[in-house]
């Protein structure tokens, strides 16, 4: 059961990364840093809500709003102001650019929020406990599972059933063709990146109640999102979901059965997938364009 809860958390966090790669072909190493910013922003927002005397349920809304705020400010700024300048370069160059971004955001976070941990426990208390198959499950974990499902469904629906979503799919498949068909590629990029940032910030915001928010969050998250995204296939939504489940299951199994391998069981799976099926579990093999 906690495999599912952990997998839901992974899914929310990795969805943004796979989306950004699918559309912009950028493997964003700063994704974890945005997750961290989301967590800090949520901590601040909840503290603000509490100090204003708002009811505890409002803290959830506060967290959602903080994620939106982060996305709207950070997303376009980073995409237009920074990443766009490096388009046309190789994907590895962009990877390095996002690595530089990761370094910068690490320190920016420290400068803005300081180096001490923040604790945001109010939202977790809201949900209490549920007795399920003899185990006490945190209601908050169930909430996360629900949230992950909602995010996945909304994303799938928007991409597959709305016009703008289909345009995004077209851009994913072939930006040049889409551009020549009259699609405003730059706008698609900005929007896609902003949504990716929003999802990362959302992940951070809703994880904040479960942990102590402190420097170093981003490092652990990036690496595990990479694993999920690679396993599921870069750019695939279903892949992110399945990848999250696989990683969640692997880790839970490891902790329950053989705790010594917990740390690297995930990377073993990632390496195995890279070796045997580098496109991931859900990527269709693309025709090679010479």
């Amino acid at each position, binding site marked *: 059961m906690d495999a599912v809860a952990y997998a839901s958390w992974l899914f929310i966090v990795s969805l943004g990364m796979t989306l950004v790669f699918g559309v912009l072909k950028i493997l964003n190493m700063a994704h974890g840093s945005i997750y961290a910013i989301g967590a800090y922003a949520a901590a601040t927002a909840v503290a603000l809500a509490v100090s204003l005397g708002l009811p505890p349920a409002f803290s959830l809304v506060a967290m959602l709003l903080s994620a939106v705020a982060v996305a709207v400010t950070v997303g376009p700024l980073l995409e237009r102001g920074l990443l766009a300048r490096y388009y046309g370069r190789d994907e590895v160059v962009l990877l390095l650019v996002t690595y530089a971004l990761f370094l910068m955001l690490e320190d920016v976070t420290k400068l803005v929020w300081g*180096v001490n941990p923040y604790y945001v426990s109010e939202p977790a208390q809201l949900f209490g406990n549920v007795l399920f198959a003899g185990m006490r499950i*945190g209601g908050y974990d169930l909430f996360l599972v629900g949230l992950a499902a909602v995010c996945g469904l909304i994303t799938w629906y928007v991409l597959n059933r709305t016009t703008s979503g289909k345009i995004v799919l077209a851009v994913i498949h072939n930006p040049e063709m889409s551009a020549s068909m009259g699609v405003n590629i730059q706008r698609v990029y900005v929007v896609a990146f902003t949504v990716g940032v929003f999802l990362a910030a959302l992940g951070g915001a809703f994880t904040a109640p479960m942990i102590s928010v*402190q420097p170093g969050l981003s490092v652990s998250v990036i690496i595990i999102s990479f694993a999920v995204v690679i396993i599921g296939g870069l750019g695939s939504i279903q892949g992110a979901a399945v990848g999250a489940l696989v990683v969640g299951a692997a880790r839970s199994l490891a902790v329950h059965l053989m705790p010594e391998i917990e740390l690297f069981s995930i990377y073993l799976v990632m390496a195995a997938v890279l070796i045997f099926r580098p496109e991931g579990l859900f990527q269709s093999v693309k025709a090679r364009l010479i």
Partner: protein
Amino acid sequence: MNSFKLMGKTRGRLASMLAAASVLTLAGAAQAEETFKLGVVTFLSGPAAESFGVPAANAAKLMVEQFNKGSAPAPYNKAGFGGMKIEMILVDENGGGAKQVQELRNLYQRENVDAVIGYVGSGDCLAVAPVADELKKFLVLFDCGSPRIFEEASPKYVFRTASHAAMDNVSLVRYLKSHNVKVNTMNLINQDYAWGLDSRGDFLAGMANAYPQAKMGADLLPKFGAGQYGTEVSVLGGKQADITYSSLWGGDLQGFLLQGAARGLFKDTTLVLSAADHVLPGLLDKMPDGSIIGARGAYGILSAKSPINDWFQASYQSMHKALPVQAGYRMTQAFMGVKMAVESAMAKNGGRKPTPEQIAEAMRNSTFDTPGGQIRMALGDGHQAIQGTAIGKTKYDAASKRVLAVDVQTFGAECVNPPANMKSMDWIKAGFPGAKCN
């Protein structure tokens, strides 16, 4: 294609750096006689900062100010260290053992400190102790708990002015026994590094003697700094036990307690925590009542009243607006021990600034009084301290908005520390032979 075109540039850079470095070293040497340069290393960022590093750094600042003014109570009332003004350089312990080795070398060789007090992390202690010995410079470990430092090696220049982790776990076992706590089953959760592993080992060995019929349920070893314990809480929830023992500390302990409490983990088990006093101010009413805790010494809410303790608590409170926790006490112990050693060495060498060898000789086998009790450098050939400790149960007091300690039991130093001629693990396994308890 001239592959070495940049040679000139590199040489120029090297030359100017050498010039700058020589000027700095000369300038540094000129001031040496009037001041005592002290490096202080502790966590200023990261998971251990708020609970350990910052209180320790605060205590260090307090000590430097009080000592330099000469306003500490006797026998610490001489100004500075034997008249020499204390100049402190504060360094962040974050970043891992390899980084700390480099920082220590920088402190000794570039900043030319006369001594270093530092290190909360047992891993860091194990990494830096050989370096101080290699460079023949004086080092006092003030906080880390692993007994290995002086049991697996004999450093000449390294000292520890606080008891090691064996004491924490032996006192917990003794407390459980003397209060007749029922232990048929026990769960364990400890961090997977020197401190966590050594604590777990010591506790299990002690319990094997005191509660031979106790069965172990879950035995978890999450990574140090993990912060997220969802899976661990599930495992522990599935195997409810009479007691849940943990040597978790800092941000990890706080996270574990918050996450476990949110899922009702602690309703049917008694928490037994070897080093938990520092999370109490942050948790307040979220800390389960009746948890059996230690502070790795008679510190904070577990401390005994004494003039020097009163002075310490009052001056710390007025400078930092909070009550001191264990890390602050231990930093104070280190400062006091160093002050005594330096002044005693100066008395022997005619009032000059003592060499590392002279300070080391003075500190060996010394005894001094601190807010946490009397410290005796009795183990590890006079390099490792022993002290008394106290264990108590937590109880949240809504009126004063603080967590108090009730049912406190104190233990003398020789009751819970191994004798000089035995390794702690051997002593525990043998059932504490030769222990002197009241």
